[in-house]
């Protein structure tokens, strides 16, 4: 097989908290165009892995490469500017700003990432407005755009988090349990959104507890357990992997 240029390449990545190995010698590669899933029981190290990739935490050992460049040790804002943007497991939004302002702010935080000029950036405010309008429409949040973010139902708040990440024009979107707290129809809408984002050339790493969702949308899946990568492969491979079945105690039912 010809060597594939990896979009994201993680090698021997480890993170210890005191004695706890939250992420333990994890390696995987993800190709451009792939929808990559990460699953694992509670406390398996999924969020920690995201924190390491985005620079929120620095690894104890290992290397992360994005589009061929080492990004290990970069600050979160520098990682975001390379094109890796994450959404959070807990809703993370500007609660006291309107829905529209949340997305406008996200756009401005990326575009004006450092103060370069002493102007009022009128053009940027207009661009932010246009961008916010478009993204809110894409995510069907346009009808609530004037509401305070804190007033939205939980599911919409999570969606708003996605809208904010999109406003930074990411290449790779890391989503930490976007389906948690969504009802079945919202979850279906989310799955449809993944396909639309792929159509726009945005790649996705999906961390999810909803195994059914992951199995149905992801091309390849990494399974973590106690910080270690116990399996990596296509959904049909993962489904029948004895170690994975073991990790999910309940047996095959949970993964089917």
């Amino acid at each position, binding site marked *: 097989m010809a060597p594939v240029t990896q979009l994201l390449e993680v090698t021997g990545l480890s993170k210890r908290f005191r004695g706890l190995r939250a992420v333990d010698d994890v390696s995987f590669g993800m190709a451009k165009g792939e929808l990559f899933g990460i699953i694992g029981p509670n406390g398996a190290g999924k969020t920690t892995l995201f924190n390491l990739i985005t620079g929120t935490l620095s690894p104890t050992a290992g290397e992360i490469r994005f589009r061929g460049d080492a990004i290990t040790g970069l600050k979160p*804002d520098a990682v975001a500017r390379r094109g890796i943007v994450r959404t959070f497991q807990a809703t993370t939004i500007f609660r006291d700003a309107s829905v529209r302002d949340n997305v406008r702010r996200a756009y*401005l*935080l990326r575009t004006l990432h450092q103060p370069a000029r002493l102007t009022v950036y009128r053009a940027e405010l207009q661009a932010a407005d246009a961008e916010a309008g478009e993204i809110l429409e894409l995510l069907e949040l346009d009808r609530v755009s004037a509401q305070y973010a804190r007033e939205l139902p939980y599911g919409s708040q999570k969606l708003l988090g996605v809208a904010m990440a999109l406003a930074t024009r990411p290449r790779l979107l890391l989503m930490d349990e976007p389906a948690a707290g969504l009802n079945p129809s919202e979850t279906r809408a989310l799955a449809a959104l993944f396909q639309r984002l792929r159509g726009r050339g945005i790649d996705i790493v999906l961390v999810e507890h909803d195994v059914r969702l992951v199995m149905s949308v992801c091309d390849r899946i990494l399974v973590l357990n106690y910080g270690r990568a116990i399996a990596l492969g296509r959904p049909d491979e993962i489904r029948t992997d004895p170690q994975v079945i073991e990790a999910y105690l309940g047996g095959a039912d949970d993964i089917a």
Partner: protein
Amino acid sequence: MRLRNAALVAIVAVAVGWPFVVENRYITHIGVLMAISISTSVSLNMMLRIGQLSIAQAAFMGLGAYTSTLLVMRLGLPFLLAFPASGLLVAAFAAVIGPIFLRVKGVYFVLLTFALGEGIVLVFQEWVSLFGGNNGIHSIPKASLFGMTLVSPRSYYFLALALAAVTFLAAVGIFRSAVGAVLDSLNENEPLSQSLGVNPLSYRVAVFAVAGFFTGLAGSVYAHYTGFLSPDAFTFWSLVDMLVINVIGGIGSPLGPVLGAILLVPLPELLRDVRQYQMLSYGLLLLTAVLFLPSGIVGLLRKLQRRWLP
């Protein structure tokens, strides 16, 4: 909107007009101090808006004051050059130390800038050959602009008023603009903001430099107006004045320190007869404000506006 414009015209008319009506040198003197205080307090307000209380602001005013004085007296520069230079020097100083100092936040930043302020004042005191030590510097030349030497308190009032207006408009402009949206985001949720691509430190340094710029300019006006500089004008206690002005006026908007300065600067003069109670009344006023006006005078006005002007 029309009401607002009318109010604006009235405020400008009063601010510019009163020294011609009240032809009293002493009251005009208070007016000059008030206007200078507006510049320094609005500058401090910029720092408070980004959640970083800089105790060094008073010493920064001193840096501006001594810079302007020395440039005029030692190098013979005209005020027209020394004035902007004093602002730029303080801004440059803030921009250089900012990346180190602003790495820390909250009480650590407060303590660091406290030490910095004390250190700067110590240099003013100990480097006698340059700064005149505790005796200070006397007979500072009056400012002259475009061949016109400013002598009367009234002329300094207009200079200080212009600076106060520019500082205020800069603060309003910054916080209403796209940059303001970035600063508010950083203040509300820095990890989220940073995860979206912004470099938090670069913005904090920029605000520190801008606040330093206007504080330095205010120091220059102060030096040439009073004609005398001594280090004790720039200690921690001057910072406390700026801070009280912000708290009582309201720290949530640049209008707060403006109103705070208008109310508080004349106060020591009004309380002259009860000098021994001066600190006490100051304290009581602060206590009242903190307890009953958590958002300062501006917060109170907003409340009244909502109630009476739908």
